């Protein structure tokens, strides 16, 4: 006799018939990442797109190498390289219309540069010369976000605001695999889906959050699977296949632009370099793993396709490489110039109108700078300590 039967007369009111609100099946990602290069589908890809992606990938790789070299020369405080992930960075920049917005994380300098930012301005954060070296409105690139996933709700809010204003604008937000564990990732995706905001989330799953591998980050079948819980489609793509990333993102953005709401795209890729130049990746991963991924290099994959289709000869390749080299030389030269900072800028942008307290502190710094210029700093009546009385 069951417990319920023992209770005899007790008859609970049956719940109202529950109907599934959405069929989750169409939202689920495919089992394997979407690929184009190396498949029959590659033959149909527009040669102009292949060449464009290739040029940007080669420039992007050269940019990563140059920026890493600049850290060794002390010209950059730190650089989180995206070597190996250039296909994601470049595709993210190229799929957007001019009016759209890009929301990068700290690793996505390259996406900002591919979108048109001056490479030097894109590096000011990492050089230590102000936090954001560019006007975000100029190329519609939000400031590089160092806190993880906190830029995602911004993308949702901006996309939502644009739609309220009747503007045909989509926001694309970039985040890493580690960032998907943050609360802001959840809140952003939930808001985006509830509001049906025209926003696309691109997770660059590069295998590690500093040293923590994906298996310790999530128990989900894939990061793209997380989408279904929010009621948005999840897409899985080979993050080293520039054409595939471009295709999947283009579709997601078209879907958002048409009023279809957000999409979560997971690009499976690999971080060839360490987390930053300050990290020792040999402590948490083996050389063989890195070598395997080197064999799946985004530039190699694309060059193979271009060559097989007769779209890239030695001369064309040299031209692309020369262009990248010129960009690197220009970057090197300009980064080797010492930036001139105005200390008074410390107070210039805290508030629209500085508080009386900041005005006082501004005067104090002004006096210190004047004394420094006159050589009288520390020569007050009480000696060097007198300045702080």
């Amino acid at each position, binding site marked *: 006799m069951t417990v319920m039967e023992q209770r005899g007369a007790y008859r609970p009111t049956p719940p109202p018939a529950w109907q599934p609100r959405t069929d989750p099946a169409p939202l689920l990602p495919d089992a394997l990442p979407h690929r184009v290069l190396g498949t029959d589908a590659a033959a149909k890809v527009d040669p102009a797109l292949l060449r464009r992606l290739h040029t940007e990938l080669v420039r992007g790789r050269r940019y990563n190498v140059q920026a890493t070299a600049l850290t060794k020369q002390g010209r950059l405080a730190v650089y989180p390289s995206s070597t190996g992930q250039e296909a994601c960075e470049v595709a993210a920049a190229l799929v957007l219309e001019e009016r759209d917005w890009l929301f990068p994380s700290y690793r996505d300098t390259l996406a900002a540069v591919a979108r048109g930012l001056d490479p030097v301005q894109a590096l000011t954060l990492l050089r230590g010369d*102000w*936090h*954001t070296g560019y*006007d*975000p*409105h100029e190329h519609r690139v*939000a*400031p590089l976000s*160092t*806190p993880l996933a*906190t830029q*995602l*709700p*911004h*993308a*949702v*809010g*901006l*996309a*939502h*605001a*644009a739609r*309220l*204003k009747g503007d045909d604008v989509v*926001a694309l937000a970039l985040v890493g695999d580690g960032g998907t564990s943050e*609360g*802001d990732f959840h*809140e*952003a995706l*939930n*808001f985006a889906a*509830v509001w049906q905001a025209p926003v696309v989330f691109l997770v660059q799953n590069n295998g590690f959050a500093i040293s923590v591998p994906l298996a310790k980050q999530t128990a989900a079948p894939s990061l793209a699977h997380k989408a279904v819980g929010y009621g948005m489609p999840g897409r899985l793509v080979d993050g080293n296949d520039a054409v595939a990333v471009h295709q999947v993102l283009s579709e997601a953005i078209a879907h958002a632009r048409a009023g279809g709401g957000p999409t979560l795209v997971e690009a499976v890729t690999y971080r060839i370099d360490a987390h930053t130049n300050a990290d020792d990746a040999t402590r948490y991963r083996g050389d063989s793993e890195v070598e395997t991924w080197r064999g799946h290099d985004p530039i190699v994959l694309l060059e193979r396709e271009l060559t097989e289709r007769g779209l890239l000869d030695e001369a064309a390749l040299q031209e692309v490489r020369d262009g990248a080299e010129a960009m690197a030389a220009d970057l090197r030269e300009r980064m080797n110039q010492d930036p001139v900072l105005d200390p008074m*800028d410390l107070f*210039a*942008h*805290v*508030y*629209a109108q500085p*508080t*009386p*307290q900041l005005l006082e502190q501004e005067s104090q710094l002004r006096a210190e700078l004047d004394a420094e210029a006159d050589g009288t700093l520390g020569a007050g009546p009480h000696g060097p300590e007198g300045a702080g009385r």
Partner: protein
Amino acid sequence: MTTVALKPATMAQALGRALRDAMAADPAVHVLGEDVGTLGGVFRVTDGLAKEFGDDRCTDTPLAEAGILGAAVGMAMYGLRPVVEMQFDAFAYPAFEQLISHVAKMRNRTRGAMPLPITIRVPYGGGIGGVEHHSDSSEAYYMATPGLHVVMPATVSDAYGLLREAIASDDPVVFLEPKRLYWSKDSWNPDEPPAVEPIGRAVVRRSGRSATLITYGPSVPVCLEAAEAARAEGWDLEVVDLRSLVPFDDETVAASVRRTGRAVVVHESGGFGGPGGEIAARVTERCFHHLEAPVLRVAGFDIPYPPPMLERHHLPGVDRILDAVGRLQWEAQS
């Protein structure tokens, strides 16, 4: 000159009126938060806004404070003026990273290119019998974060005027609404709200010459009551209502203390690491030679906010203020 009939209005009604008038005046103003739409807010401050301006202008959001404030950042980036509601003081804590890492810094990190005109309304403070997480005084956290304005009205007129100004400000404003004053009333003509002093200006609510009570928000009426009671003891107390902690009005405060020579800072948040320590230091730096006694603080105890049945022992009341005023007779003591 026509005479206008004054009607009593509560602070909550004045705040709602400020939101309504700001939305009517500027289509960029959007209100968002949990329960602000159909319900009209748990304190009814946003009552009627969704009906008048539609769900797109007064939006019920998912229950997620970081998401609410984070979305507001993006909305402000695109030219809107979001006014977010945090419902209760301690509910704002999940949004701290957005507030501190982005809202407070965006103007600075973009060198002025991307100001964020966001108003963050936080019903705050104790005295309403709320259970835990509904009565925190969080102003010290906010005032320690450069880039934010921290504003707290104590009168019905200020509630209207300061909120209008906060929404019009091009900088983020943390707008702390004293919950226990929501139902305080004043005779007030909503169609012709009185002009008030701007954010950053303190106001002398009561003139006196024996000592200055420096206070703000929910403690202002308590200090005024204490000042009345002190007359019997022969004390003529001046009461300065700060109205904002950032910017801080050193001038008005110092001028008052120079006149009276004695000062007590009164607030209900904890004393250790609280606003009172900063205020006492500022007063001492400016008025040392005028002071007849150390600047004293009357604050809440340094404890997590107590259960409602004990909160009257925690909140600074008239007696505790009068006791401090008595201790200002420093010469007699030392």
